[in-house]
């Protein structure tokens, strides 16, 4: 016990030793990431989407094998072939999307997770064990109600109970608070602290800085697969963490500034944007709800003028998605006004919005942007398939013209594919995105709404897409660029709005911001705002 309380050099429970993960499509999700987990500790794993947090924890919990590197326990190297083996070893993971059978009760769900082939399911026994466990952990859920009838917070508790009932030593929680109400978050944190006192190790995946500060002992920051920070929470400031997360590691800040200054002069050549009156896109007091009914966009007003890029920066999940969806016809907002060249676009069908000259590069190219089993040609007319160019009399599609159009797109946007009839799912991520960008820009739009346009792309494709956006801006189009990549926004936007909890903390030119203040604003540090005022 005593050596657990004061972990010695070897007092770790599990260690990730220089783990690299390359997915089969060539994406490098982790680069030489190392992480040591000790008992009596809550580690916050901080990073943007795609930073590699989930990949790292999946490797630790046996869901994925590492490409290189190893997982080490005090007894030697461990290799998990399945999550079950990891569970037997004492590692349990609670996923963001719960793995519960909705029509089963909590007891049945837990019993199911204990099930082995040919052993049968022992509900009564499980119930007894669960009652004892609930007493012990203070984690109470109704055992005999189908879990689909439980609140989300309760369902999560069932998941945690499921893992705890296997007597784990390391509990990994993937974004556990994203679905919880503030009260439920408090309850969860109380529980986590108690588990920590009992000697368990906990990894908390999150991108919310506030949570990290309030519960973790140590913070590990990942950025684009690389470990950029491993600090004691008490010694790190929120701004510092925000910088690590969205900016770059402190030590190579010099490099990064160089990189961005290299692009900045090229990016901003036009200063003669006329910003009088209403912009091409005019938004006033927009309020929209998120999927769970919470206010996600909280009274935002802004204008985007022709010939400028208006950037929206911020940690993801602060209302950016809902803002974009409201402006592109995919979400009906609660109130407010939004117009394009004076015509209302709120609650209007996407098809009519496109007619007004809106191009939408959606944040999720697989779910929203493409019909993956469709061919290139079929995808190239999604949203414009009713335009005269492609649709003849009797609603017949002009396949000849469509094929020509696709060939032009493939040429102009350098889309690598076997031909117009190749299925979109056979393309690489970069080429899929180029297809979407090409399709949208071919609409000859007045305004381009680009949401995370370069996420997950290799450097070449990302650069190409950014250049294309700059060209469109120089051609006098208005561009709304929403991105979680802070460098991208700062380097390309003419004006930036920094979003936090559904509001703009600040709208200004990127030159007026330094990295530190951006970090603070993104973390919701109101002092920064007050100082500025």
């Amino acid at each position, binding site marked *: 016990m005593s050596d657990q309380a004061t972990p010695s050099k070897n007092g770790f429970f599990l260690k990730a030793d220089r783990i690299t993960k390359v997915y089969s499509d060539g994406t490098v999700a982790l680069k030489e990431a190392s992480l040591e987990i000790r008992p009596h500790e809550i580690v916050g794993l901080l990073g943007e989407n795609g930073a590699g947090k989930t990949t790292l924890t999946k490797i630790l919990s046996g869901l994925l094998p590492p490409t290189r590197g190893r997982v080490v326990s005090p007894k030697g190297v461990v290799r998990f072939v399945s999550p079950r083996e990891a569970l037997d070893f004492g590692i349990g993971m609670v996923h963001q999307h719960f793995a519960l059978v909705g029509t089963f009760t909590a007891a049945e769900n837990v019993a199911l997770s204990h099930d082995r082939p040919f052993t049968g399911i022992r509900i009564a026994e499980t119930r007894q064990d669960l009652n004892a466990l609930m007493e012990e952990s203070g984690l109470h859920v109704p055992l005999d109600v189908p879990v689909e009838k439980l609140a989300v917070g309760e369902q999560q508790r069932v998941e945690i109970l499921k893992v705890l009932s296997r007597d784990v030593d390391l509990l990994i929680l993937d974004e556990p608070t994203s679905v919880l109400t503030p009260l439920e978050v408090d309850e969860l944190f109380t529980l986590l602290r108690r588990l920590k006192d009992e000697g368990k190790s906990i990894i908390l995946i999150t991108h919310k800085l506030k949570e990290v500060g309030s519960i973790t002992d140590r913070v590990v920051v990942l950025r684009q697969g690389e470990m950029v920070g491993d600090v004691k929470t008490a010694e790190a400031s929120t701004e510092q963490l925000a910088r690590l997360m969205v900016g770059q590691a402190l030590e190579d800040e010099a490099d990064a500034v160089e990189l961005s200054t290299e692009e900045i002069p090229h990016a901003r050549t036009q200063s003669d944007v006329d910003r009088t009156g209403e912009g091409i896109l005019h938004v006033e007091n927009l309020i929209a709800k998120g999927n769970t009914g919470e206010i996600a966009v909280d009274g935002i007003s802004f204008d985007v003028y022709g010939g400028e890029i208006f950037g929206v920066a911020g940690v993801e999940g602060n209302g950016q998605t809902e803002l974009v969806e409201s402006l*592109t*016809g*995919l979400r009906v907002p609660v109130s407010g006004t939004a117009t394009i060249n004076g015509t209302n676009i709120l609650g209007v*069908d*996407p*098809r*009519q*919005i*496109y007619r007004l000259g809106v191009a*939408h590069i*959606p944040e999720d190219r697989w*779910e*929203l*942007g*493409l*019909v*993956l*089993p*469709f061919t290139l040609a*079929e995808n190239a*007319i*999604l*949203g414009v*398939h*009713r335009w005269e160019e*492609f*649709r003849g009399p*009797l*609603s*017949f*599609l002009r*396949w000849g013209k469509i094929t020509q159009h696709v060939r032009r797109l493939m040429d102009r946007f350098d889309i690598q594919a076997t031909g117009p009839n190749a299925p979109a799912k056979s393309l690489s991520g970069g080429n899929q995105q180029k297809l979407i960008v090409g399709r949208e820009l071919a609409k000859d739009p007045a305004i381009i709404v680009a949401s995370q346009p370069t996420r997950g792309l290799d450097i070449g494709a990302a650069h190409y897409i950014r250049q294309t956006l700059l060209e469109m801006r120089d051609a006098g189009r208005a561009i709304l660029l929403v991105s979680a990549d802070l460098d991208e926004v700062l380097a390309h936007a003419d004006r930036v709005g920094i979003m936090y909890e559904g509001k703009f903390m600040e709208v200004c030119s990127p030159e007026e911001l330094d990295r530190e203040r951006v970090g603070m604003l993104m973390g919701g540090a109101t002092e920064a705002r007050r100082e500025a005022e």
Partner: protein
Amino acid sequence: MSGNESTLQSRLLRGAHRTLTGLHPALESLLAAVVGLLVGAILMYIYGFDPWRAYMGLVKGAFGGSYEISSSLSRATPLILTALTFSICLRSGMFNIGAEGQMYMGGIASVLVAYFVLPTGLHQIAGLLFAAFAGAVWGIVPALLKVTRGVSEVISTIMFNWIARWLALYLAIFVIVDPMRTEKTLSIPVSARFPVLVRGTDLSYAIFVSIAFALVIYFLLWHTAIGYEVRAAGLNPTAARYGGIRNKRTMFLSFILGGIAAGLAGATIVMGLPPTYAIYGGGGLPQLMNLGFDGMAVAMVGRNHPIGILVAALFFGGLNAGGRVMQFYGSNPVPLEMVRVVMGAIVLVMSIPELIRIFPMAKKRTEELIGSLRRLTRRSERRESA
């Protein structure tokens, strides 16, 4: 020249690879048919029949001559349409199990032409319109329930099948009944019948209704913006919404088209199947029964593609027509039910998703083989160029 050859070579290799690993849909259907027939053969063998002779009888009975081919085509006629019902809705992402009921309603509605007089041609069209309308109405109701109340279309269409069945039976026995011969409904007047296409057989011009409708659906789905929307909404509703497609509309459209197809299927039987040209109420609508469900099997084997359905319907029509012959085949009378066993086995095999995944080892092996072949060709090319 050698460059061209190598691309041809690699293309062939890629083609072979795709065939072996992904299995071309048509091949998969063929494989399912073969496995189905094999299962039937094994069962026949177990029960002491001679499978070879039975299948010879089946093939002869199905395609042995112009009479046999006509019988097969005649049996394929309604199946093409009920298969289209299932496929159109599946393409829009819905499971429409209701072809059976919609077909009953169409059949009943087409009997109404017996109540008025029209010149030939118009009279047939009137009957088809009635049937199409009745089928469509029966299809819209589950779609409405789905949109307004969130009722699963699988459940509601199945329930509507039963409502339609009893309603049709009631109407056939008590309302549109032939007062002279109460076991059947009024007969379709001669001016509204589809004439027989091949003399002495029960193949009528009604088959052109089926083929034409299949072609219409093909052009609609693959060559019009409307069909494009239906397919997009079926494959990815979220992306469809992003593309300005109203998913509810595509869903309604698919149910209406499906209902029309099933309604017409009923009409092809009532107006186009000699010699009765009426619906027999006695015995529970024996002429119509199960055509809707068999259509689903045809749709699966036809890979939910109108052209594939035409081929698959001919195959199933052949099974039905040939099965009767198999039954009376000399010393080897295999019961007709065996044909249904074969059909069932085919459907089972078809429902195994991506058949080839049962043999992941085989897949891996072929991949390795093709990889090494490629390396070899590349090496020889290099040598040549050197």
